[in-house]
């Protein structure tokens, strides 16, 4: 009997040992790895960054070098970092199978570089980059500064936060559910979301095209002479505060929502439908504002009239 118990214990301990070793084997083999690499790069080259999870922070600097610091997550295979002519490529290579953790990259690039960052869940933050930017994530939040080059940023469920330097440029922002915020942007802005909120505090826009399905749209700021705002949503509320009401050509329509304004006008019913519209024209009428909603409320005013 004792022998049997001893045998069983022995077998049990063997089992535990095997299980423990199996567990250990399944753990990522490599701990977090610090990164500190740099290479010479063109002052106005193109930098491509790919990282699935974690974070990507890119900052422009005056050096003609690309420098990377940060950490590779546990279980990550390696960091690929190559410069070929004016093309720089940085990619975190994750294992095809097995668990791995996200990697956090802090990257310095020549300020005049164009930048293309793609992630899945990693957040993206770009600052002081004056070249063109393409920023794309599935669920990561994206933050960027815009100077005089164009920006395209899109994410499915992350948020987009863009700040401009009041220099005219072309900005395109898209999300599915993420909120969009754009501050001090000038030039042309296109922003669209299905259910995310869009908030724009504009510098001086020549053109803005903002659209949602159910997300709220708030636009506050300057519309240049000859400029145009087009805002559209089905059920998201729309609030617009223009810098002034001079030379304005406004046409706001809602199928069944209310239209409130500070122009001292009443929205009119259209024919036999519940549709309401508000039209206002002042001066040359060369600053065009068009707003349409299906069922949601429109609020529009100009700072010069808001008291």
């Amino acid at each position, binding site marked *: 009997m004792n022998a049997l118990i001893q045998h069983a214990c022995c077998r049990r301990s063997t089992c535990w040992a095997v299980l423990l070793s199996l567990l250990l084997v399944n753990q990522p083999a490599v701990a977090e790895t610090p990164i500190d690499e740099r290479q010479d790069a063109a002052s106005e080259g193109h930098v491509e960054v790919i990282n699935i999870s974690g974070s990507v922070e890119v900052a422009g600097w005056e050096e003609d070098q690309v420098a990377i610091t940060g950490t590779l997550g546990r279980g990550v295979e390696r960091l690929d970092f190559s410069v070929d002519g004016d093309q720089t490529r940085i990619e975190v290579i994750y294992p095809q199978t097995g668990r791995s953790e996200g990697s956090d990259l802090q990257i310095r690039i020549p300020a005049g570089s164009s930048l293309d960052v793609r992630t899945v869940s990693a957040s993206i933050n770009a600052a002081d980059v004056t070249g063109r930017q393409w920023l794309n994530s599935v669920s990561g939040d994206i933050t960027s500064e815009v100077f005089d080059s164009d920006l395209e940023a899109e994410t499915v469920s992350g948020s987009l936060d863009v700040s401009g330097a009041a220099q005219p440029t072309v900005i395109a922002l898209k999300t599915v559910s993420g909120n969009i915020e754009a501050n001090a942007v000038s030039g042309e802005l296109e922003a669209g979301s299905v259910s995310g909120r869009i908030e724009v505090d504009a510098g001086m826009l020549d053109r803005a095209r903002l659209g949602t399905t159910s997300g709220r749209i708030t636009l506050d700021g300057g519309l240049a002479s000859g400029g145009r705002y087009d805002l559209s949503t089905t059920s998201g509320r729309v609030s617009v505060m223009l810098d002034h009401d001079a030379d304005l050509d406004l046409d706001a329509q809602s199928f069944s929502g209310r239209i409130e304004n500070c122009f001292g006008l009443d929205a009119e019913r259209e024919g036999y439908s519940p549709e309401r519209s508000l039209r206002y024209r002042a001066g040359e009428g060369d600053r065009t504002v068009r707003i*349409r909603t299906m069922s949601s409320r429109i609020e529009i005013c100009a700072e010069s009239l808001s008291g």
Partner: protein
Amino acid sequence: MTNDRTDHSVNQAVLEQAGQLPRAVTPDRDLWPGIAGRLGEQLPAEEATANPAVVTPIHSQRLLPERWQAPALAASLLVALLLGYWIGREGTDAPSSAPMVTETTPGTGELRPVSLVEEVGLLEARNAMAAEIEAGLDRLPADARIVVIDNLTAINKALDQIDAVLEQAPATGLDRQLLISMYTDQLARLSSVQALVMNSNQEILL
């Protein structure tokens, strides 16, 4: 990625073309009395085929065997309706009691109403984009997939809502212009979602 972007630009082109389509489609007057009047005139003409004393139109004698006359009548009715439809596209605020455009359901000969969005090809664009998005969902991580599906539902709900109002409202031209604009705007949202899903087809995804 390049192909995805090409697909997206094709869809953008479709949307832009859709945007060029006339948006106000209500005739500026009630066309039905005129059509009914023509129908009334048609009856003596048909009787004339059995009565040589009445002059039969030359095109009827030469080109239209008897078995084609009924379909031809239906076709001419449809053309008349469509003409009225498009002539009235610069429509005024005047209310209209114009009949809804109809088409024959294949195989049944039964007339059914044609949705306005179907008529101008927007439904086709919508279905194509929705199919591409669904096909691309596998490229997304599970949580993002749920977000896209939820938001796709929201867009479809909005589109159906607009479509339903379009079908039901005996609306003014302006009214339909707004609704069609809203519809194309939502198609643009759908196109954006499609582009986002397709752009997520990256080599970086595991």
